[in-house]
Structure formats: C-alpha cells, structure tokens
C-alpha cells in the first residue's frame, strides 16, 4: 500500500483502550436490538398460526330429509400469516329423527372422495362401501366412515371439520 507520508510517524496505539471498549459496546448494543427484533419477527408468528376450524353452519336441521344421504360443502379456513386461506371440503349428513350423523367426505382408505349409490356410501377408487350409519360393508377400507363433531344451535346444524389419518384402523385427527 502506498502512502504519501511516513506511516512510522504515528505509533500504533494499544489495542486495549477505553474508546475501543465504548465502540465495542455500541456495536454490541445495536446488534442486540436488531437481533432481538429479528428473532421476534421471524419466530413469533410461527406460534400464532392456526388451522383449527370454526363451526361451519350447514343449514336448518329440519331441511335435511329423513334418512337421506345429503352432501354439503363446508369452507375450511387456515390462518396463515397475511391470509385466511379457504378451500372447500365435502361432508355427508344423515338425519334419522333426532339422530344425526355427519361424515367426512374423505375416504378413510386412501383419501378419495366418498359418494353415494342408492342408500349406501361408496368410494369408487377401490370399491369400499358403507351403510348410512358409516359401518363398513365391503372393500379395502380400514375403518368405518369418519364422523365429525357437530352441534345444533337454534335448529341450525353446525359442524367442525377435521381431517383424519388414512389407511389405519384407528380414527386419528391429523394435526
């Protein structure tokens, strides 16, 4: 490095110096403020996101015809950062008098969509069948249709949508 003047003129100062210490503290302080802010910024929202579903209204209870297999779509919504991401899922409602059942429209076998034929539930993918109670009649399905939690308020049927693990005999919530 070329310089216009003699470097030797100025003695190289001690590394240990009060001013150096203050400078170091300043740098450390700024880094700490930034570090904490960035930490909160990046980690915080990871713990507030939720995909827990609200109760979705399916309509007045007495509009579900006695003994019929009725398909309804529910909107499931996931809170993720700046958005509420909504998509639709199907559920099946069977009402027999006061006895109501709400089934998930997802086949417990490998996740195809459940459909109906006459008064039976069927899954066309691998030929599973269930009666209107959700009990297995035929096919490779490992368990009966998955029932969903529901409640009736002011005669309105409301359901809480959930996804379950497939291909196992136990009904297990996917979370």
């Amino acid at each position, binding site marked *: 490095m070329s310089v216009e003047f003699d470097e030797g003129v100025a003695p190289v100062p001690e590394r240990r110096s009060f001013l150096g210490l203050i400078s170091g503290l300043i740098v450390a*302080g700024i880094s700490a403020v930034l570090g904490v802010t960035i930490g909160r910024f990046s980690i915080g929202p990871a713990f507030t996101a939720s995909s827990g579903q609200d109760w979705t209204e399916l309509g007045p209870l007495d509009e579900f015809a006695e003994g019929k297999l009725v398909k309804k779509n529910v909107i499931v919504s996931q809170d993720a950062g700046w958005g509420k991401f909504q998509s639709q899922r199907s559920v099946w409602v069977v009402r027999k008098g006061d006895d109501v059942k709400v089934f998930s429209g997802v086949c417990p076998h490998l996740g195809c969509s459940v459909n109906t034929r006459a008064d039976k539930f069927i899954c066309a993918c691998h030929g599973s069948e269930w009666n209107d109670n959700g009990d297995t009649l035929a096919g490779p399905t490992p368990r009966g249709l998955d029932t969903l939690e529901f409640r009736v308020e002011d005669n309105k049927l409301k359901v809480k949508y959930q996804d379950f693990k497939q291909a196992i005999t136990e009904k297990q919530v996917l979370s």
Partner: protein
Amino acid sequence: MLFAGIIWKNKIMAESKLNKLYDWLDERTGIKEITREALDEPIRGGARWAYVFGSILLFLFAIQVVTGIFLTMYYVPSADHAHASVSYIQKAVPGGALLRGLHHYGATAMVILAVAHLAQTFLFGAYKKKRELLWAAGVIMLLIIFAFSFTGYLLPWDQAAYFGTKVGASIAGEIPVVGPVQQRIMLGGNDLTTVTLSRFFTTHVFLLPLGLAALVGLHLYLFRRATPAGPFHNRDDKKIERFYPKQVFKDSVAILICFVALVAAAKYWPAELGPVADPTSDYLARPPWYFMPLFQLLKYSPGKWAIIPTVVLPAVLFGALFLLPFFDRREERHPLRRPLATALLILILGGSIGLIFLARHQDRTNPEFAEKLKQQEEDMHAYFAKPFEPQIVGGAAAALAASGKAQEPPPAYSENCAACHGDNGEGSPIAVGLIGVSSKPQRSKEDLLKILDDAKPYGLKKPMPESFPKIPPEDKQKIVEWMMTLKAQ
C-alpha cells in the same frame, strides 16, 4: 489481598489462553494482518467528526440488507397479495413495525447521508488527484441509491406507491427515442401490473444490492489505496493518527446516534401504509421528498420541455459530477479559494431544498390540491389505524364467502353441470369456472340463457355438450339466476 491476587492470576491465565487461541487462528487465517490493515490505517490530520459519513453509510447499507432480508420472510411480490403482506408485517408481526420502520427510514437516511457525503467530498476538494475513481464510484452509488428508492417505493402496492410509480414510469417513457421501449422493459408490458411488481422486486432485492455491494467493495479498496485526503488546510499535516481507536470511536458514536434516530422515527412516526392501490381512483400522486425538486421543476416545463427537468437536468448533473475530477485538475482544495465550485454546490443544494419547500407550499396553498391531499392523508391514517385483517384467499370458497352466505346451487345444476363446472361453479380442467362470469360484459341473465342454448353467436370457442338445451326451462332459469350470484372477489 490474597483474594485479589487469585483474581489477578486467573485473569492472566485466561488472557494467555486467549492469546494462544488468537495465535492459532492467526496461523490459519492471517487475522492479525487483517485487523492491522483494518484498524491501523493512518489518518493525516487526525481523527475527526467530519469523517463519519462514510462509516454511517456503510452501517446504513448493512441495516438495509439485514432488515430487507427479513422483510421478505413475509412479503409477497404479487399485486394480489403485496399490500396484505405489508399490512401484516406492519400491523401484526411482532417487531414488524420496527423492522419495516428501520428499512423505511434507513432508506431516507441513506439518501440524505449519501448526498451529505458527496457534498462534503466536493466541498473539501477530496475528489481531486488520485481519488478520481473513488469519487466516480461514489457518484454511481448515489444513482443506485436513488434506484433503490424508486423500486422500493412500489413494493407496498398502496395508493401512493401505485400512482407514484405510474408517474415515474411515464417520465421514463418521455425520454426521446429510447423512452417508449425503455418504459415497456421497465414495466414488463404497457401497464403497471403484477409483472411490474415482480421485476421491481427482483431489481430491488437482487440486482441493486449486488451492484451496490460490489461498488462498496471497490470504493473501500480505492479509499484505502488513496488514503484519506485529510483536511483541506495543512495546519495539522504533521499530526497523524490511526483509524483505531479515536476514529473508530467517533464513527461508532455517530452510528449510534443514527441508529437511535431511526428507531425513534420508526416508533413515533411509523412508516406509512395507505389503502391498497385502486387504479380507478383519482389519487393525487406526489413523489417522495427527494424527488420533489424535479417534480417542482416539471411544473415549469410545459409540453415537450418536460424532458428538461426529468431527463436532461439529472443527466447533465450526474454526468458533470461523474466527470468532475477529470476536469478540475487544480490542486487547490480550500473551499473559499474555489469560489465557483463552492457557489455551485450551494446553488444546487440550496435550490433543491428551496424547490422542495416551494412544492410543499404550493400544495398547501392551492385549495383544490390541499383539500385532496388532506383527504388522502386522512384516508391513509384511517386505514393505518384499522387493525390488521387477513386477506381471504381461495378461489370459489372465497368468492362464496365474499358474496355473503354461500348460496347452494339449484339441484338441476348439480345434476347437469357440476360434473364439469365444479360443485360450486369453480370450474375444472375440462370446463371454465362460472364465478364472476355475470360481471363480464354481455353476460346479463338473458345473455346467459341464450349462451347456454347456443354459444356460437357469442363467439365462444369450445361449445358445451348439447346438454343444456334439454333442461326444462324453469330449471334453466334457476341455474342462470344462481350463476348471477357467483361474484368474483
């Protein structure tokens, strides 16, 4: 006594261990040489507060990079979601307002300090002999900083961003010959769209930072090579101090003051965010303050003269700055003995500041503008005060949710149409979605009925299978009525 002795002994032992570690590291990295090179740079005339600007700028650049990187953790560069994501950062994410505020005010501070740094170098004649390239790199860096401001301004996609950029793009389009082509390239088309936002984003977070980082490296290298110019007088030419510790201390204190000011600004005057861009509104666009001088000059330049302030003047100014050290070869550095240069600097800086105030003053006193700008300001504050609301995303479901209660399709639709058009009209790979169809031109209820019976007169390409005409008329009515309720977001 004994106690103190033990502490003392421990201290010495700890130190010798540290020294060993340092030696070990040095053998492998040459760290001693590097620190010596970094800290022991001789400064002619000694450490001074006047020399802190470069270090603050380096610090600000680091702040911008760090805050910028983390802002992209939530920011979405798409016209549909940019605003929601910025609003989320500002209003909902812990530390988000501070981080965005630091980035926002850091940008402003960079413009101010870069201008100050250049003005000082100019005033002290520190661009002369041996430092020409150092100076030229600095001038280009100032340009890059302005490019940062321009591209970053659009990213929040609020009213000010959208209309401000629109004006900026039009100005770019006015450049003779190359203007229209350049404008197209800049926008990625002939209008300000989500594509524009994407390329502004890419430029802002990848291209410009790379360019600036490279120039910072070059600038520092050239600076070390040329050594600091020192004071313009030679009163204390004999006095030479090392960069460490005095100048390091002065730089650190200046950086601390700057940082505290940024944090305070971010806390007490949060970075603004207005309502989402609405291209149909009659928003009165105003540039950020550092583009105000050109904006004001634009008012005095009717018609084809507009390119004088928008293009010619900046080009001449930057061209002259860039070439300055190659013309001005006198060795004299004292500002008072370079009256022309000093007067020029005062004229340009003073003129710019004057124009900013003039523009503000005119906006305040023109009743029409004042009213509108006040209204816009109020809208902005009203929007800003509202708590964060997540944006609802998700095709059909969202559309249904937005139109109030989800309307069930009529049974005739489910039987005849749903197989292809989706259970709720969301469409499928084999058929178009029906959501939002009714809001298109020529799609009244009557039109839809006619289209469904015979799509050809409407010039639709893929006709539906002949299933619709067979549906009984009252069911057709129901289907079409239901279709009319399918509103897009």
